[in-house]
């Protein structure tokens, strides 16, 4: 059959949206656990939630939202064929990701220093709801951190492609999908942040 190699943008986007949906569902299992255990241990959850470092959380939220903005601007920039700007904006996004992870590292070190981590003796001797809260917190945030890492790597790959010119104004679906993924990472954090740092 004779055919020009064609790219199906609609298809690529549809596929990406489906994938993002599966990622949300992955986290939804953890949110489900959060909901049930919160209703079972409201007092312990509140006490533990008050002990979280809201400063770290807020800072990281600001960082992620900024990074999402940069990613979105990169998509606009590539449509205008401003390659240098695209690279700068992607670099900024990745820098935000790294800062986010560094922050996380500091926050976790402080908590682990206080003897708070899954399976720690301190939690084992505390009230049961507290241990559940922190285990869920570590798993949810850890899984999210993994997604930050994957997202940043993905954007780095896209950046290399932009530099090489294989992703350009005429064909930028990869950048668009990379940015979509990044927004998802952001979105999940937007759920995590209030649940663990704010509402309790």
């Amino acid at each position, binding site marked *: 059959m004779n*055919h020009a190699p064609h790219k199906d943008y609609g*298809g690529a986007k549809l596929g990406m949206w489906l994938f993002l949906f599966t*990622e949300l569902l*992955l986290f939804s299992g953890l949110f489900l656990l959060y909901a*049930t255990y919160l209703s*079972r241990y409201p007092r312990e959850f509140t006490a533990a939630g008050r002990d979280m470092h809201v400063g770290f959380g807020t800072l990281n939220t600001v960082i992620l939202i900024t990074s999402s903005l940069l990613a979105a601007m990169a998509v606009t920039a590539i449509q205008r064929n401003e390659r240098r700007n695209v690279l700068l904006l992607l670099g900024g996004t990745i820098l935000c990701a790294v800062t986010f992870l560094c922050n996380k590292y500091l926050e976790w070190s402080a908590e682990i220093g206080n003897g708070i981590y899954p399976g720690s003796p301190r939690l084992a001797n505390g*009230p049961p709801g507290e241990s559940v809260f922190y*285990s869920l917190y570590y798993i949810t945030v850890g899984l999210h951190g993994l997604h930050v890492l994957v997202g940043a790597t993905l954007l780095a790959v896209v950046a290399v492609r932009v530099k090489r010119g294989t992703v350009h104004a005429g064909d930028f679906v990869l950048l668009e999908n990379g940015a979509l993924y990044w927004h998802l990472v952001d979105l999940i954090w937007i759920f995590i942040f209030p649940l663990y740092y704010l509402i309790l």
Partner: protein
Amino acid sequence: MATVQPTPTSFWNDTGKTGITSWIFSTDHKRIGLLYFYSTFGFFLVGVLLGLLLRIELMAPGRTIMGPATYNATFTVHGVVMIFLFIIPGMPGAFGNLVMPIQIGARDVAFPRLNLFSWWLYAIGAVIVLTSLFTGGGPPDTGWTFYVPFSARTGTNVSLAVLGVFVIGFSSILTGINFVTTIHRLRAEGMTWGRLPLFVWSIYATAWVQVLATPILGITLVLIMAERILGAGLFDPGRGGDPVMYQHLFWIYSHPAVYIMILPAMGVISDVIPVFARKPIFGYKMIAFSSLAIAAAGSLVWGHHMYTSGMSDTAILVFSFLTFVVAIPSAIKVFNWVSTLYKGSISLEAPMLFALSFILLFSIGGLTGLILGAAATDIHVHDTHFVVGHFHYVMFGGAGFAFFSAMHYWLPKFYGRKYAEKPAVIAWAFMFTGFNILYFSMMVLGLKGMPRRYYDYLPEFAPLNLVSTIGSWILAVGLIIMLVNLFRGLFWGEPVGSNPWGGATLEWSIPTPPPTENFDQEPVVTHGPYDFTKAGVP
């Protein structure tokens, strides 16, 4: 049956590449389909061997060939292999890949490289599962359900097995995404939603279940690893966790997963029955719609596995009610198939025999499912051999027999050669007979109170257990005849033409075996999938 020589320009050789790497790195949906077929079917045979060993152990009371620990490991590995390595990836991976793109008039799936990646993930996951059997604390012994607290504590190699299943789940998700996108974007001109073959409809519904349910399996497996490796205690009552929450998460995936197994099977049956009854399918719209209805309603019934685990009475009532609701779309399909047969000119060839036995066996499996779905009766038979009999009727008598039907119906298309009819029918007769002896006795044993997952039992259960084991041997004989006949036929049998069965779906309008690009020109579809006056033309 025409005796056209297979064209030398088929996907087997028309690219000039025939070495092993041209297969395991191929992005052609047909080659990937065959990769899936051989790998999943290979695991099926492994699972069968383990199943036969289980039956030999249960042949007589007391220890026959293995002790309790080995028995636990054997049924666990049997279950894991059959579910995660054979039946879930098998149907979409093998026949979804082989047939679906051709049936919608496409050259390939939407993301061919992702498709190959899916198979690789499957293969890697399978290797991880296999590694878990021979390393660490030895094969997992938790049952395929990996229930906590046992799975969090046992010294066997659960973490690695769970990791393997996780990777396979990821593969399943990617296949689902690929197929949904393919069916939305790549239908040929004239291939309207109302003209989609019912197999495509069922693959479409399946793909949605794969996309929507499998992530929950993913997180559940991650949590098991967290329990074991981090000591998270999320399901440990001693530290505030709740093991019942594990069961919820597990079944939120695993009940929909039974639709990943059975929906494509129903699609096969919907395609085979009209061809061999020489009649358009009865109730096309209702069959297509019921696939979607099953996929949707099926995601709300997981609680029927947990009536005895501790749930509120209200929850039990609701789950029970919803379980009965899902039975309706399944029954709709059965009635439509039977109506299609009515006054048809039925030819009882091998694919049709397997399809007809599907209807019977699946109906038995489905109706016994209602006994388990009704809380009052479930309390009595929960965790007995009744359950074991029930799900083998659905997964083996249903999905498995449909898989065999598909093998006889479609594989000749891709090999250009065909098995001999008579041995195929003999094989079917053995399998059908053996199957019913094997599993019907199990259901009776369950009603009498024999629990599942024990290597030993009370002497009063001995006679029926012996009968059941003899049934498994009859089944095995049938299976061997089928395998020898089928594969001998595919490689050395009589050549077949492009449309040996007189089907009207698109795959029968292209050469046998199909060329890599499937169609010379993009087909323009002019008729429905079961309009046999136009058989063989797009």
